[in-house]
């Protein structure tokens, strides 16, 4: 039992690890990148008049075409 206590103590005696770039800024980069992506593509997909050619099924109300 004494030996296992000592083992535990050794295991816990870690050196403090200096935070690297990813620890410091990882969350910021991730969320920032996601925000830029969402804003730009949200705008591109909806606001600039790109015709995506979606199916008329369930979307378009048929209109009389005969003149």
């Amino acid at each position, binding site marked *: 039992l004494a030996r296992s206590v000592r083992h535990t103590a050794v295991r816990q*005696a870690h050196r403090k*690890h200096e935070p690297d770039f*990813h620890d410091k800024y990882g969350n910021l980069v991730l*969320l920032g990148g996601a925000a*830029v*992506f969402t*804003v*730009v593509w949200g705008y*591109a997909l909806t606001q600039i008049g790109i015709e995506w050619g979606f199916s*008329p099924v369930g979307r378009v109300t048929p209109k009389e075409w005969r003149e």
Partner: protein
Amino acid sequence: MLASRAFGLVGKRALSTSICLRAHGHAGVVKAEDFSLPAYVDRRDLPLPEVAFVKDLSAQQKALKEKEKASWTALSVDEKVELYRIKFNETYAEMNKGTNEWKTVLGGVLFFLGLTGLILIWQKHFMYGPIPHTFSDEWVAAQTKRMLDMRMNPVEGISSQWDYEKNEWKK
């Protein structure tokens, strides 16, 4: 036979030459660069690296190494840890620890994909002309009714999605 005798002499000369060089130290021989010597490496599949991590021991560490030669029960926990750190750089736990690198990678990828979207926006605004009039809402509506009136693709296609009794799209 002459050639083999000459070769034998050359061999003896080369052997004695190299012994001389070793005896003289570094005379005429390039000093072994660090990268050509066995190196320490932290690898999961290499539990005992070829050399210890710390090569040049301080006086304190040298004393500890001397103490290591005696009974190990005399060593304190801190001393044992210090001996470990002399021999090894990271523990297995430290070696295997994950990082947050994926956040930077994914965030960077998303950011540059966003820049690509900006290119698309520029193109639509400055480069492409107007889309054909056949995409306007009234044209598409009339076109859709004509497709349904013609019973276009009635088996699995668009006409199969229209309820001709109720005059609406099938739910």
